[in-house]
């Protein structure tokens, strides 16, 4: 053995203690407080990409693109509301608070949604006049904190969304750190300026589905039974949660999977609580079907919707509509590589920037700093969002026509197969090329 020439082992990182884990341990040791960030889970999960459409061939006839009609409209709130909502596209804008987002960003969301013929949603912190003014169809969130909750705004809304939970943090309350509690945000929330706001995770005046039923009755009485009432839940036990929401009298159930974004939440919460969107849809639809309520109580699915294929897949699995948060912010200009130099200064990089709670967003979206917020032109950003929504709708239509469907709602699980055993089990569609649905009897 030549002792001067022994082959060296390569430096090797641990898969368990990888560099991100090590960095977090050091950060925790230095600060003593958990990591808070915005966005959704960053780990790879079984998702819509693990599903494929079969398309038409000998046994199914496709529809002619551009020539044969493929409907995209959706009615929401047909169960009890005197004034249900009619949208041109099943892609809605999810609830994101003024406070988390700048006034300009909220206005841009309203503008974009209105051009596209869809709805937008308020968030923790109440309704701003800019957003009401620019949104043709506005859903008013009714949250545990009740910040800015006002019966006049309730009556101005087109629908009411009772928020029980969010996919990024089922069982968690809101957070808005001091940097973002500007004078206006503080006043709307009746809070001292500059405090670290931790809002409640349970509603103050009801607990459990029996109380919720009475709460929903009250909201209907106050608004003279006009408005659709949604119940939003984070995906955890979707079969039971959806069944209980229906029992409590919801017109619409919003189901948000763990990929769903948040403005600010503990990293450990985002990454370790809740189930993926893909795993949540079938149990939710099953609950509606078991109660004879599928399509009578509408289901809106959110959490990681990025393109028209995702929209089509969610609908094929039984959703009536979807909601987007993160993708809408990206369409407005969030994480734009053109701002790379500024993301670098914040110790991040375009595409990975998630310190939205710090209020320093160079794109002017997740900030209350007037100078940064002024960077976002609500008209131009709204136009970009409208364009993006149009693409999502066109893409979903393209797929539906290829599957021979004259309306997006005619897509069905039978149009889908899965690429992985996990996705097949979760979406309850066969593994591609087989008749095998893991966990189900039969097959061919």
């Amino acid at each position, binding site marked *: 053995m030549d002792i001067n020439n022994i082959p060296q082992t390569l430096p090797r990182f641990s898969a368990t203690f990888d560099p991100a884990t090590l960095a977090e341990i050091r950060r925790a040791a230095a*600060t*003593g*407080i958990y990591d808070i960030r915005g966005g959704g889970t960053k780990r790879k999960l079984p998702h819509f990409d693990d599903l494929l459409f079969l398309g038409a061939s000998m046994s199914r006839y496709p529809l002619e693109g551009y020539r044969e009609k493929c409907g995209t409209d959706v009615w929401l709130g047909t169960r009890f509301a005197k004034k249900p909502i009619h949208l041109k596209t099943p892609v809605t804008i999810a609830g994101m608070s003024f406070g988390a987002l700048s006034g300009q960003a909220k206005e841009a969301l309203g503008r974009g949604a209105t051009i596209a013929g869809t709805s937008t949603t308020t968030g923790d912190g109440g309704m701003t006049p800019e957003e009401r003014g620019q949104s043709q169809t506005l859903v008013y969130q009714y949250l545990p*904190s*009740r910040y800015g*909750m*006002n*019966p*006049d705004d*309730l009556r101005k809304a087109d629908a009411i969304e009772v928020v029980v939970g969010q996919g990024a943090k089922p069982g968690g309350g809101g957070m808005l*750190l*001091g940097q973002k509690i500007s004078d206006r945000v503080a006043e709307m*929330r*009746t*809070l*001292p300026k*500059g*405090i*670290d706001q*931790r809002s*409640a995770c349970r509603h*103050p*005046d*009801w607990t459990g589905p029996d*109380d919720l039923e*009475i*709460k929903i*009755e*009250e909201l209907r*009485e*106050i*608004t*003279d*039974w006009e408005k659709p009432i949604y119940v939003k839940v984070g995906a955890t036990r979707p079969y039971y949660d959806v069944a209980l929401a229906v029992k409590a009298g919801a017109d619409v159930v919003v189901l948000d999977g763990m990929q769903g974004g948040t403005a600010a939440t503990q990293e450990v919460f985002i990454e370790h609580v809740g189930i993926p969107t893909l795993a949540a849809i079938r149990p939710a639809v099953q609950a509606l079907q078991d109660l004879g309520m599928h399509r009578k109580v509408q289901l809106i699915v959110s959490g990681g919707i990025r393109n028209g294929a995702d929209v089509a897949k969610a609908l094929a699995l039984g959703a009536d509509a979807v909601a987007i948060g993160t993708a809408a912010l990206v369409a407005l200009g969030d994480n734009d590589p053109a701002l790379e130099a500024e993301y670098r200064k914040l110790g991040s990089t375009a595409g990975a920037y998630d310190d939205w709670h710090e209020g320093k967003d160079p794109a002017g979206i997740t900030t209350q700093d007037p100078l940064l917020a002024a960077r976002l032109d609500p008209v131009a950003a709204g136009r970009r969002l409208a364009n993006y929504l149009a693409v999502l709708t066109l893409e979903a239509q393209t797929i539906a026509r290829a599957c021979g469907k004259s309306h997006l709602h005619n897509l069905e699980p039978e149009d889908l197969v899965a690429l992985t055993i996990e996705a097949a089990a979760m979406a309850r569609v066969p593994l591609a090329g087989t008749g095998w649905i893991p966990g189900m009897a039969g097959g061919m």
Partner: protein
Amino acid sequence: MTTLDLSTATRRDLNGALHALPKDAPTADWTVLHPEGQHALAAGVNAPVTVTIKGHAGYYCAGMNQQATIIIEGNAGVGVAENMMSGTVHVKGDASQAAGATAHGGLLVIDGNASARCGISMKGVDIVVKGSIGPMSAFMAQSGRLVVLGDAGDALGDSIYETHIYVRGSVKSLGADCVAKEMRAEHLAELAELLAAAGVDARPEEFSRYGSGRTLYNFHVDNAGAY
């Protein structure tokens, strides 16, 4: 005076009619008979009218009230006057949990006792309870004033923000970051006004004041046990 009998009319008849009242001109008084504990009675009223409910009310009576004076001649269920904006709600009997929850304004007077979570998340309302209040009252209370002539249960004012609490009797325990505070002249004056508004004959000097220690307003590692 208008009288509506809920043994024949429905809750929808009542609320629909109250919602149709003019917002900016006074209306003759209303009396509601046979409420029998129904929920959401006189909820969402926005008019200068006095509504007297002759009996017990269920959940969310006078919810989100604006301008109206609503008198309940009986007990009130969960969330009486929840999210009230203005006006007066007067419960002649006892109130259940979450009385005056999240209310932004107006005056809530309870002649009897109030159960747990009285004034939870209150945002500017004034609440005067002539009896005692249950545990977790004024939890996360943001603004407004809570006056209690009797005793307060466990964890009073947990995670309180800027609400002023005045208690004449004993407090079983204070919640996180709620502390006893000095009664200064301005507090005695404010309390005297509230007692007068609620028609209570009591001396402000007999009360103790509680409020936020403001130590949890910003995250600090040494407070981790309190979060």
